[in-house]
């Protein structure tokens, strides 16, 4: 299936889902077995049109290289993209992503990964450089789509039930210290491989359950900051907003959460003067990035895993802690399934983030 093309670039795809995140704060790597099990347990929330996983700490042998996962919808798309990569990066390694053919996974695209090095003179702004090149491939190269572009991490996703996607990508062979799992229930389009979650750009991965009523203005706002929407999904918008606020504008996570799920004006007015000024200014300046409508989302990068719900909490999200491990899940039962002796678990407050930070070394 081809990418959606709209002249306004503000079309969108509706979907709904299950989300699961698991992180070892000490940075110890573990297999995806539990994440797969928990995600599969929430199969009721999916309809077989999308499943996906993100794994951090995946490629320690290439920790300083950008790992691009690219799907090719047609064979002819490969060589122009590889030419483009060669002329813009030093390609350390390229290989086909290992997959296992399954009868339930029909018509998969060609899947390749590339480990890339950025030239010395571009190193100080390598992240912007990579974003720009990813955008160029995704908007300018027909039939090619970069679905993962971080360092020491990777996204695996496609059309199918999460259990089949996990098998297809042989995820049981991988290890990571932070895993995200997603099952998708798109409601108005047949799913396509790129549209599955997690959505990723650089280190940011987003999995999401919900629907943004504010999508139209969120995407217009991000466009004026140079982000081009290629997928027309809420998830993509959330990832770009996170990238803009936290990486480019250097807002700390808690304040970025105050932008994405802004407190009510009444609550802002009740705060102490310094906090009031801060929150009011954030809302005045970033009002167009307020994510309105129901969502629960897990946003991750190599250092953190963040859970957040919309400001009136119209979708579920539960957190759990056991030792060094932090869990986030659409359903609490999925956490108990993989950890039956949690130290504590709680449902998130509306608009208040739960943040798990890496304390060890990745």
């Amino acid at each position, binding site marked *: 299936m081809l990418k959606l093309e709209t002249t306004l670039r503000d079309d969108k795809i509706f979907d709904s889902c299950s989300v699961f995140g698991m992180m070892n704060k000490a940075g110890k790597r573990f297999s995806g077995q539990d994440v797969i099990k928990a995600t599969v347990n929430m199969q009721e929330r999916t309809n077989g049109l999308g499943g996906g996983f993100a794994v951090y700490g995946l490629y320690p042998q290439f920790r300083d290289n950008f790992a691009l996962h690219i799907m090719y919808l047609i064979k002819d798309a490969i060589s122009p993209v590889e030419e483009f990569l060669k002329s813009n990066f030093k390609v350390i390694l390229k290989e086909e992503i290992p997959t296992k053919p399954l009868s339930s996974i029909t018509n998969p695209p060609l899947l390749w990964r590339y480990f890339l090095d950025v030239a010395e003179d571009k190193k100080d702004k390598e992240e912007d450089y990579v974003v720009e090149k990813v955008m160029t491939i995704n908007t300018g190269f027909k039939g090619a789509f970069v679905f993962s572009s971080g360092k020491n991490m990777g996204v695996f996703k496609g059309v199918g039930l999460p259990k089949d996607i996990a098998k297809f990508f042989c995820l049981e062979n991988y290890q990571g210290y932070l895993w995200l799992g997603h099952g998708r229930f798109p409601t108005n389009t047949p799913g396509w491989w790129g549209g599955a979650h997690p959505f990723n750009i650089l280190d940011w991965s987003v999995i999401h359950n919900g629907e943004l009523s504010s999508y139209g203005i969120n995407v217009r706002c991000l*466009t004026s900051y140079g982000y081009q929407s290629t997928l027309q999904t809420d998830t993509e918008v959330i990832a770009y907003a996170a990238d803009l606020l936290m990486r480019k504008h250097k807002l700390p996570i808690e304040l970025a959460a105050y932008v994405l799920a802004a407190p009510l004006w009444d609550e802002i007015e009740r705060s102490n003067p310094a906090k009031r000024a801060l929150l009011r200014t954030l809302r005045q300046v970033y009002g167009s990035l307020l994510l309105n409508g129901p969502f629960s989302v897990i946003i991750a990068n190599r250092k953190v895993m963040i859970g957040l719900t919309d400001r009136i909490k119209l979708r579920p999200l539960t957190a759990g802690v056991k030792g060094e491990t932090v869990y986030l899940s659409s359903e609490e039962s999925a956490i108990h399934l993989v950890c039956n002796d949690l130290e504590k678990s709680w449902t998130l407050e509306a608009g208040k983030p739960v943040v798990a930070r890496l304390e060890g070394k990745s």
Partner: protein
Amino acid sequence: MKSYLLPEFVIERDDEKCIRCEVCVRQCAFEVHTYDEEDDIIVSDNFKCVGCHRCLTLCPTQAITVKENPLHFKENFNWTALVQRDIYKQAETGGVLLTGMGSDKAYPIYWDHILLDASQVTNPSIDPLREPMEIRTYLGRKPDKVQLTVPNLQKREKSSTMDYQLSTKLSPQLKLETPILFSAMSYGSISLNACKSLARAATEVDTLYNTGEGGLHPELYKYGKNTIVQVASGRFGVHKEYLDVAAVIEIKIGQGAKPGIGGHLPGEKVSEEISKTRMIPAGTDALSPAPHHDIYSIEDLRQLIYALKEATNYTKPVAVKIAAVHNSAAIASGMVRAGADIIALDGVRGGTGAAPTVIRDNVGIPIELALAAVDSRLREEGIRNQASILAAGGFRNSSDIIKAIALGADAVYIGTAALVAMGCHVCQKCYTGKCPWGITTQDPYLTKRLNPDIGTRRLVNLLKAWSLEIKEMLGGMGINAIESLRGNRLRLRGVGLTDTELKILGIKPAGE
């Protein structure tokens, strides 16, 4: 010269119902009705009737009916009754035809071709009577990003929000509790009681009214924090206190009802009070030149914007109002770059106290298209955040307003709707100074008809009702903060529009 004009209206009186109370005689500002004591009858002169409905609204026995004169001109698509009447008038007077209020021509009203979205299944709609629904709006220039200082870098990873201090200092922002403002209507074009009603209603609802270029009457200074003061080409009533007391200063370049031309308040309307407020001698004509004679270019506009900012020590936003014309988008971009914090766009259907009919009905473009073009252009240039957009020009109801916000407006000016709330019946005779409803007149006998307490109440009710309707529609779309609808054109669909119109409006056709 015998006039060939025939009456526009026919007045019928049910003699059995008429109790000869003479209310109609006293109420008609155009002296249509007279009481003949000898025959004990009231006679009505159809020629003078303007169709304002004052007499029949106040008649205690509903004895009066006013109908359109069923004159059967010979059918002709070119030479309609209206065309012929206008020619008779000009042949008899040799003058420019004058009119009041917004254009009554049947130009497309795009609002009626735009439909709103609502939530079904995949996201829940929200009930504003039970859950918070925020329509608060801040007008003013916003920066591209918020900058913070981090007192201790080591704490960065684990800090609480309070460790961060704001280093961004915002330009002045103005809080509105509803995205509806009262448009510029000067003291002179409307009565002091009408001004008071607007000022008090704006204060009560916590929004803004606009002085127009009539200066500020001493009795209105106390409403300063809800006042936009205008600096127009005549510079009437502009002085330090005037600028200091206001919440916003608006430079008026143009007006939707009369783009490209100035204004003219006849000397007979310049009473003692108005003379003081406008700072011109009593009885002299108040002439506003067509252009500002110190603004012949965008760089001149910049100078005036910054002169006003300097004069008020950068404490308040400066707005620039233009009529919506063909290249509004490029002009608006220039205005933002010249330092305007707010851009007001007034469309072709915008109202006026007095304008040449030919200008009102033929110059400018509809606000819907201008607004969409300006919002898109500013976004393309990445400067939309640098100015708020106020849309004006014929807003009739809350759905027009919410559609404008979804197209990209921050808030909307209403003029005619506010007048109608105070009693106006849109007879379009504002320029005569004889408003029978006491609104667009300075005649003390007429102005006392508008009780400012009642005027205020009616305006407050209107704003409250519209605000509630806006909240209902927002909630229906699953949105609980108005900023999530602003510029969110994906929640609009067009019906019966051409591809080109859809493209300019930036919306999709219904069904797509």
